[in-house]
């Protein structure tokens, strides 16, 4: 008599590591997807001197806002791919069926997304800041706000990406439903940089960003996991 072989489900930690490794591998194999959001970031910023004129003072004035708005938009444009490809080839269904609890898998995917999009964006931002004549004293604050803020963008965006994954043309809708939720991150991020330019200590805004990050980290993975289940119904 043969006995059916049941493999035991992997522990949550191993599932997380495996998912993270898989997503990173795929991301690094398709380099264009890796680089496109960054190119969009730099190109988008290059449009502003062309649009409002090359005067350093005016550019420095709008720099904190422009740098942050472009960070929002680059993240938004990259979000559609967070679940889309896995949805198209059926891997997403396997993820929903096999990884228990599902939010662990979602968290791994979000972390991979941030490592591939948010982190490089934060590291690239000093170059973009120079293009807009942001005072050098404010650059560390800019990088710090982006390091704290872009994970929030990825986490909230994962909810939107999960909600729209089953839809044929979800891209624009994703932008519509997520952009209003990004308002606090934009205000606090750009506000901290402006404070740093004016010589005011930006610790308050940074603390707020960190607090929002902690909140979103505890709650959005559940919402995104639930949204994935709804989307795959």
């Amino acid at each position, binding site marked *: 008599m043969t006995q059916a072989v049941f493999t035991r489900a992997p522990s949550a930690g191993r599932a997380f590591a495996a998912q993270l490794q898989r997503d990173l591998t795929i991301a690094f194999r398709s380099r264009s997807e890796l680089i496109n959001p960054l190119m969009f970031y730099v190109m988008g910023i290059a449009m502003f001197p062309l649009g409002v004129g090359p005067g350093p003072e005016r550019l420095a004035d709008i720099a904190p806002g422009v740098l942050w708005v472009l960070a929002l938009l680059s993240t938004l444009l990259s979000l559609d791919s967070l679940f889309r490809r896995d949805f198209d080839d059926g891997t997403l269904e396997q993820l929903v069926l096999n990884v228990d609890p599902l939010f662990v898998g979602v968290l791994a995917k979000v972390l991979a997304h941030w490592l591939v999009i948010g982190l490089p964006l934060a590291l690239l931002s000093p170059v973009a800041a120079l293009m807009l004549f942001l005072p050098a004293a404010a650059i560390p604050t800019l990088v710090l706000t982006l390091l704290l803020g872009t994970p929030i963008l990825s986490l909230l965006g994962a909810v939107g990406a999960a909600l729209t994954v089953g839809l044929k043309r979800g891209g624009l*809708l994703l932008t519509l*439903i997520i*952009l209003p939720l990004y308002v*606090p991150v934009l205000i606090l991020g750009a506000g901290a940089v402006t404070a740093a330019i004016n010589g005011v200590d930006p610790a308050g805004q940074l603390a707020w960003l960190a607090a929002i990050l902690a*909140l979103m980290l505890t709650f959005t993975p559940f*919402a995104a996991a639930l949204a994935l289940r709804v989307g795959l119904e």
Partner: protein
Amino acid sequence: MGALKTLWHRLGSPRWFFEISGPWAIGALILGLIGIAVGLVWGLAIAPPDYLQGNSFRIMYMHVPAAILSESCYILMGLAGAVLLIWRMKLADMVVAAAAPIGAVFCVIALLTGAIWGRPTWGTWWVWDARTTSVLVLLFLYFGVMALRQAVPREESAGRAAAILAVVGTVDIPIIKYSVDWWLTLHQPSTFKLTAAPSMPPEMYLPLLVSVLGFYAFFFGVLLFAVGNEILVREQRTQWVNDLVRSRLR
């Protein structure tokens, strides 16, 4: 406690809710219209003019209730969304569907009356001030919920997707409000606070209070009607709806 539990279980039946909500909706609407009429006549004609703003402050009797309602409506929508996700109550889905456009209209009223008020008072139709901005973002959030619901083809999935978005939005709203308040604000502070007496004389705030309560009653009336309509549309294939329509046609 037992009665509450029974009520909770009964809410699971759209038919029961439809039958019970009709009279409530009419009652709330009548009460609301009376409240709004009394509040507006009292506020527009009888209350004394403001020593600084003259008569232009009187638009407050429209503006403040609409702004309050726009937020209350979103919170109600978020709560209904949570109920739908946790207990899968059909009725909660219909409340989310009905509340979103109503709340969006209140946002628009608040923004329009705010613009009309801002013109003589601040000298401009629009300012990027904290409260104005939060109401605008709130309007965008309503649009998002409505757009998502329309985009998802399956009705049940659409309801749950909209509910998830409404709940996430409800968590984000306090953060949006506080972050927007980081900007120093042109706007006058809240008219009503639970912790302190209003800074206005009673001749001015009493009509406002009546108007706010009238708006609330009106809102519940409209919401109940909208939910009733949702119920009829969703349950159109059931026997009781067919019987109801036939008895009305006769």
